[in-house]
């Protein structure tokens, strides 16, 4: 376990969401949903950048559990982004990625 693996997951999620953001916006008129998509994308990028800067070295049991959850959510997000029909699910998964990424940055930082 190392920082690289955390970055890999966050970056993959960010790239996947960035690639599909335009198409997701193009299919919804719902203002709240559109705001949420833009906000999650921006915050996911901030989370990734914070992980890049953070000194992540304390991979304790809690961090390992959080990381397993992060991987699982990222995999689900990938799947949801292949099929763009369920925007609420995509938003929920992106929010989870941000929560888990933030928690790992705090818990693994030295």
């Amino acid at each position: 376990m190392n920082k690289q693996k955390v970055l890999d997951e966050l970056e993959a999620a960010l790239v996947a969401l960035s690639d599909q953001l335009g198409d997701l916006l193009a299919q919804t008129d719902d203002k709240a949903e559109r705001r949420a998509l833009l906000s999650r994308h921006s915050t996911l990028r901030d989370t990734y950048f914070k992980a890049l800067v953070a000194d992540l070295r304390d991979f304790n049991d809690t961090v390992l559990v959080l990381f397993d959850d992060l991987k699982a959510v990222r995999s689900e997000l990938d799947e949801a982004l292949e099929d763009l029909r369920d925007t609420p699910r995509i938003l929920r998964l992106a929010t989870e990625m941000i929560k888990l990424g933030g928690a790992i940055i705090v818990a693994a930082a030295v």
Partner: protein
Amino acid sequence: MRSSSVLVVGVSCALASCSTLSVEQAGKLASAGREAAAGTTAFLQVPRERNGAWIEGSAFAASYPLPAPGVTTCNRYGVQPIPQSTRTIAEAYYAELDKTARFMGALDKAYSAYAELVAYDARGEFNTAYDGLVGAAKDYIGVSFDPGVTAAIGSIGGLVQSERQKARAKQGSERIRRVLEGFAPAFRAHQRGFTGLREQQVREGYQHVATLWCAGLLDARPLIAELATGYGLAPLGPDPVTASDPQVNTAIAKVLEERSKLRGRDVDQAFEKIAKTFDDLIVEHRKVEAGQAADIGLLTAQIAELRQIVEAYSQAEPAS
């Protein structure tokens, strides 16, 4: 850290391969080391140098409407202006890169002083520069970093002048090399920290350029010429190729999309080549110290390539 003790070397040169050590190669090693430090510093400055273009590119793209049902827009990726939160994190990231740049500055001074140490008896200058280098290494690697050599290079007696010169060259090389051996793994450990933000700048940069292209503000002839290179065909005519042709518009947008995916890998490769230059520098130090023929020519060629990579990297173009 200031070295307080002074090492006086007498007959040790004979035991330490000094007689076969090439002072000329030691001098060339110093030049190569300075070049490596300068090239790496340039590499580290790229993300900050491109910060303005990244922010301004996003502002431009975001001035076009966001995608929405029934809306045709050139902002097809849904680009938003870079918010203050992101700019603040980016500044913290650049500050991290500055730490490595400070180490490179100290390394450059140490190699410069090493060249003088080899050329004439500039022990004072070298010892000062070496202390600065060790201090920078402790700041970069951690306070526990210990190069294993604490003594300053002192007067070297009991040998003819040429042998004293070789003994100085060997001692100076050992000191710099030991610091590099501590630095190299720490540098590699920071790889993603160095490349991650730049990769994102490059990916988003392609989205910004796609907006400029779609808006009819760019001429695709250079890109088309690149695609045709080596196939015996040349682009047609003197007129600009713009997005006004829907088929060309889509085709060029697809090329930009593919380049965006590929270029992140180039950033990683650029870092890998720089890291390898330091590994090779350590190897050549060892050869010089052992009195073996060092391959400074190869190292110099690698450093020249490094310079080209940095230039390409700053433009988000392939390192070819």
